[in-house]
């Protein structure tokens, strides 16, 4: 008798399957560290923020600002911008969204260790009325709107009083979330999955998004992630490794979308460690010896854009005619002129799990440098160890990938090119130890220059100086690729920042 009951129970459990309307299963590479949108400035946190929260404004596919919770904005004076907020928006908790929440959020951002650097420029936020705010900056800031894309208003009534941001340990905000976004977090298993349901009271009635349920699973290995899509376990994956794209394209019922991104991969040549690198001819020779086009073609299978400068063509600083140049003969001649005809030996480090095919790129580069007599002792490390070494400047040559937070060239220059200064944080990732005070002055000026024309000239001037000086070796701008089943219209919702607007994702039946 007992056995029969047990068998019956087992059968019931086996047959038990929830009937779900439209479920979208997504696999990406990492899940957010915390539910607190202000705890870590990382791609996965921002992807999550776009699901559960709404920004004041966001970038659309064409690189224009699209109003979200801010319906419009206007510049009042050189230091102030006024934002008009959307009415009739409610948080998950039912609290109504208003100006107090935005003020609260920006003030919280100013306390966040990760976002502080960006929001330091904001002096104060003033509530004009319940749906209007004025944002005052300390000095004129041409990039205020770019920064405001990082403001995802949080529910003040929900968080207030228990909103501390702690990098370790448990906080209220890291466990609980209340936003205005298209989805509501239903369940989260850290490190293995996250389940969200559609917000029934979502304010954006025009959104075509129709997934009732979203399940996000992080899958670390590129090939496993693709296998999950091909075997039908998930509907939408990103990123897709360039190696697998060709194969995935051949599979029917699978669609791929590729967009060029603004993330620049580059090499630093440490001038303090090696006197050879202080010679501009050597730096030029190295630039000439590296064949960016071949790397992009062979290793990244064409899913990147060879770079001769730091700014991508979306940025102001981009100069049309700065193309990567490959010429071994000239490189050899330059080496000879510099007195290093016999070459020399350098050490090089690169991560092996941070960027797409980073290790292979590094290997290819060391092979290319050997053509001009530079012997490279290459070490590749997992990212956890790599960035420790990076901070110590442990090798003569180091690889770095940089995505501009503000979608502007100056962010690149500030962190990668400016003279290292521990006090201001300028040049924090300048592993070249390259220092040109006049470039620093330009960078500072560009940070405040409100005239777009003059600002463009300033940024291009910096870009050209870097190029002429061969300060670093730009490699390529990585492309982003997403893949999904044919009935999932990802084409409309992806963008070059890799924050897919899943709230607007339409799934055909």
């Amino acid at each position, binding site marked *: 008798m007992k056995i029969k009951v047990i068998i019956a129970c087992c059968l019931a459990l*086996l047959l038990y399957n929830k009937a779900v309307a439209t479920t979208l299963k997504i696999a990406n590479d990492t899940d957010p560290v915390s539910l607190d949108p202000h705890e870590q400035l990382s791609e996965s946190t921002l992807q999550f923020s776009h699901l559960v929260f709404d920004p004041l404004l966001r970038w659309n596919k064409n690189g224009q600002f699209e109003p979200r919770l801010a319906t419009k904005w206007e510049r009042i004076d050189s230091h102030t911008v006024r934002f008009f907020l959307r009415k009739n928006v409610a948080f998950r908790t039912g609290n109504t969204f208003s100006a107090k929440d935005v003020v609260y959020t920006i003030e919280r951002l100013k306390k966040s260790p990760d976002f502080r650097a960006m929001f330091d420029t904001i002096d104060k936020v003033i509530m004009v009325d319940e749906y209007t705010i004025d944002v005052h900056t300390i000095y004129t800031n041409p990039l205020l709107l770019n920064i405001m894309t990082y403001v995802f208003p949080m529910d003040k009534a929900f968080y207030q009083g228990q909103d501390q941001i702690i990098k*370790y340990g448990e906080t209220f905000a890291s466990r609980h979330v209340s936003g205005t976004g298209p989805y509501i977090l239903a369940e989260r298993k850290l490190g293995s999955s996250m389940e969200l349901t559609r917000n029934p009271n979502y304010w954006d009635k025009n959104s075509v998004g129709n997934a009732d349920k979203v399940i996000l699973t992080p899958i*670390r*290995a590129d090939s496993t992630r693709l296998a999950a899509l091909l075997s039908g376990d998930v509907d939408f994956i990103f990123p897709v490794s360039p190696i697998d794209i060709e194969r995935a394209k051949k599979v029917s019922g699978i669609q791929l979308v590729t967009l060029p991104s603004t993330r620049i991969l580059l090499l630093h040549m440490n001038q303090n460690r090696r006197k050879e690198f202080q010679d501009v001819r050597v730096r030029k020779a190295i630039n000439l010896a590296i064949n960016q086009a071949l790397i992009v073609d062979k290793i990244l299978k064409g899913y990147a854009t060879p770079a001769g400068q730091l700014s991508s063509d979306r940025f102001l600083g981009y100069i049309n005619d700065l193309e990567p140049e490959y010429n071994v003969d000239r490189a050899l001649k330059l080496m000879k002129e510099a007195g290093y005809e016999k070459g020399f030996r350098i050490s090089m480090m690169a991560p092996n799990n941070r960027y797409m095919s980073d290790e292979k790129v590094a290997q290819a580069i060391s092979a290319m440098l050997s053509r001009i007599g530079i012997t490279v002792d290459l070490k590749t490390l*997992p990212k956890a160890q790599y960035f420790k070494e990076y901070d110590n400047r442990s090798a003569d040559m180091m690889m770095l990938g940089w995505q501009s937070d503000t979608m502007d060239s100056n962010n690149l220059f500030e*962190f990668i090119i400016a003279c290292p200064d521990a006090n201001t944080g300028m040049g924090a990732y300048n592993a070249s130890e390259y220092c040109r005070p006049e470039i620093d002055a330009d960078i500072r000026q560009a940070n405040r220059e409100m005239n777009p024309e003059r600002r463009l000239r300033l940024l291009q001037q910096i870009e050209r100086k870097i190029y002429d000086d061969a300060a670093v070796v730009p490699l390529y701008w990585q492309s982003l690729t997403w893949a999904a089943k044919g009935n999932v219209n990802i084409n409309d919702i992806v963008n070059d920042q890799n924050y897919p607007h899943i709230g607007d994702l339409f799934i055909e039946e």
Partner: protein
Amino acid sequence: MLIFLLRRLLQACFVMIIISVISFSIQDKLGDPVQQMVGMTVSPEERNQLRNELGLNDGFLVQYWRFAKGAVHGDLGTSYYYKEPALDVILEKLPATLELAFCAILIVILIATPCGVLAAIKPKHILSRLLMLISSIGLSVPIFIVAILMVYIFSIELNIAPSFGRGQTTEFFGFWESGLFNKDGLSHLLLPSLSLSIALMPIFVRLIRAEMMDVLQSEYIRFAWSKGLSARRIYFIHALKNTMLPVITVGGIQAGTLVAYTILTETIFQWPGMGFLFMDAVSRVDTPLVSAYLIVVGGIFVITNTFVDLIYGLFNPTVRLASHGL
């Protein structure tokens, strides 16, 4: 019996102390946890500040003492990533790993025992020769190649079973997330447990065969034959029972190997168990989690070993338990 258990307990403590020292000493050596916690734009001072708060700048002994004090109270530190007590995080993943290991062992027992017995009683039979050849090949193909092939064939080409994760789980007793009781969970279990068992199978087939052949040579088996017993009774009662003794011992030792295999299998199949957690923790430099994992695995080994000895005692009446200790 009591003395045996007490001795075992003492040993376990000794072992755990050694393990805790080792696992603690690797903290801070795997990379900088602070680097992983903050964004790219955070200044060095702030990082140092954070490091001070975490106590990472104290001396080794100070840190160890703090760690040991906590460990006694079941506090193995707080995972940097999960922001929860490391022990809780690991215990939460334990059911997944145990279910995987359990299913793999079940498959191994169900298949390896008859195969091993067959190969032992009919060593010249074509089937046993084939079996031994297959087991030789199986022994020679590394588990990660097996796993890759399985994903490729069953998941991508044939689309029979899912290639990653655990699928739907049902909760029991409030803490045990089980995937054994629904179709989705079982289908997810298929490939990982199969590839894990394929890795273990050859070892056990060979072991059972060798031990069985050894036992079949023994006097008491010959005496059993001389008594005119049926072949079935001799093989499955007289011989198998004696065969299983060393198999159990080796099985206990294999527990360590099983842990290694689960790391590989879980990594390839994204099985959300302890091994996957461990590799994740290593790559995230979540040092409290790494050392907690080492301690938990060490503990599991000590427990299984004790159990193996106890079971050994049950199976083998000749063993006096007390003589087995230090």
